[in-house]
């Protein structure tokens, strides 16, 4: 797991609680703002979407791209972050 960022590691280390959506790996200021505008203001809401899509990578990536315009790398980071979180806590 040498390619995970510090943000990823921080997020996956503990239950997300009320963390904002910008705490997700791959989601920074810009994407976070866009997600918030769409109503995904907390990380757990994005988690909800992730779970509703049955943790499917392709669908989640598509959804991210459509919702906030994240590029491929950020999609991958976010997906990986949530997936690992789920593996650890869900």
């Amino acid at each position, binding site marked *: 797991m040498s390619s995970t960022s510090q943000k990823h590691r921080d997020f996956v280390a503990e239950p997300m609680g009320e963390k904002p959506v910008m705490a997700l790996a791959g989601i920074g200021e810009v994407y976070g703002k866009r997600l918030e505008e769409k109503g995904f203001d907390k990380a757990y809401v994005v988690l909800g*979407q992730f779970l*509703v899509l*049955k943790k*499917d990578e392709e*669908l989640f*990536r*598509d*959804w991210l791209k*459509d919702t906030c315009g994240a590029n491929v790398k950020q999609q*991958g980071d976010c997906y990986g972050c949530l997936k690992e979180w789920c593996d650890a806590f869900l």
Partner: protein
Amino acid sequence: MSQFVENPAHLSKSRLKSDLVAHSVELPPVKSKKEVYVGLHLQHIGQKNAVDFSSDEEDQVQDVSDKEEDTEMPDPSGLTDDDLKAALLEHGVKAGPIVASTRALYEKKLRKLLQSNGHGCLNGVEKGVLYSDSEEEEENGEEEDRELGSEGEKEETVKQSDQAQQGSSQVELCFQNGGFVYPQCFLLSSRLFPSGSQSVMPDGESSMSSQAFSITHMVEEMESRRSLSTSSDTERALNGSNVQKHWSRSNRLDMPIVDTMKNQSLYYTPKASSYEWKMKLTQEPVKDTVKNMFPNTDATTTGIYATRRRPIKGAAGRPVQYAYPDTPVSPTTLEKREVERRLVPIQIQILVFLIVTCLLYLIYVCVEDNSFGPSVALLDRFYQGSDSEEGLLLQAETQDVPAPSRQE
């Protein structure tokens, strides 16, 4: 085609529902049994088919109904959630809950599946015509856009390399098969073998790094096509191969290697061969940029530039081409050298130590001087060195002499 002849009882409940919807028949309550659906189906659709059969415009109507059944609800956005789910299931996709946020995604997915199915029928025919050239200039441009977002299975990409027209369909087919791993696979496939295509290529010469990889295919292509193709073609192909996005270049390997011109089927494992070739080969058309990369290589007759790698020291079986710069050194000599290195510093250390002690002594003297009186004698004593004792005594005597003299 055969579906409308089928007994409705053989259709699944969801299928019946969707058929009813397609024929704009009011659906019974959700919890109704299948028989209700079958009955309704027979009622409305059975009758309709009967009508169709008896009409003079039978064929047309049949075609229409065929089409309806073939495309299976062509407009995903017009479907209900259940129908959408059913449609996806028919395509082998197990969809999750279709709610407000997921609906759009599933609709998009269904559309893709429908399109790919429509094109998928061509695949069988295409594969038989693998190596024919097709000059589809416009489609190349379109393909590029599509391919930028698509991934490709390697075998299929190899086969598609010459099929610009059908390539687009296969692109989409492959796109669904895989994920986002290899986005630009198809770019080369469409670009490499258009004979005389004038598709707009990005300036391939700009990126040196991507060329390193694309060169590998180019080499293959060059060698095989040298006698057949004009340099302009290869240049175009090379330019085309250098796409803006570089990180998929390792996967482009397969495309050019299938030499469509010669009707050879060369299937290279993607990365192994790419790395092999990369190390050894460069290409003539790409010479200008390549030469910058490898300025020291000499021109060879075949146009292949091989940079000899420095032999590994001690590698078995490799002849030593030149003397090693270092002579073999034993551990003892190393130790000796270390010691020698230390010798000089040691002397300096001693010197420094002496200077420091002298300074400290001076300071001590000064301190004593303030508290005890005349320091000159002590300083003189210091300067006289080893004979200081005698000097001290003399000094003391001299001091004592004037002292008593003063007193007197």
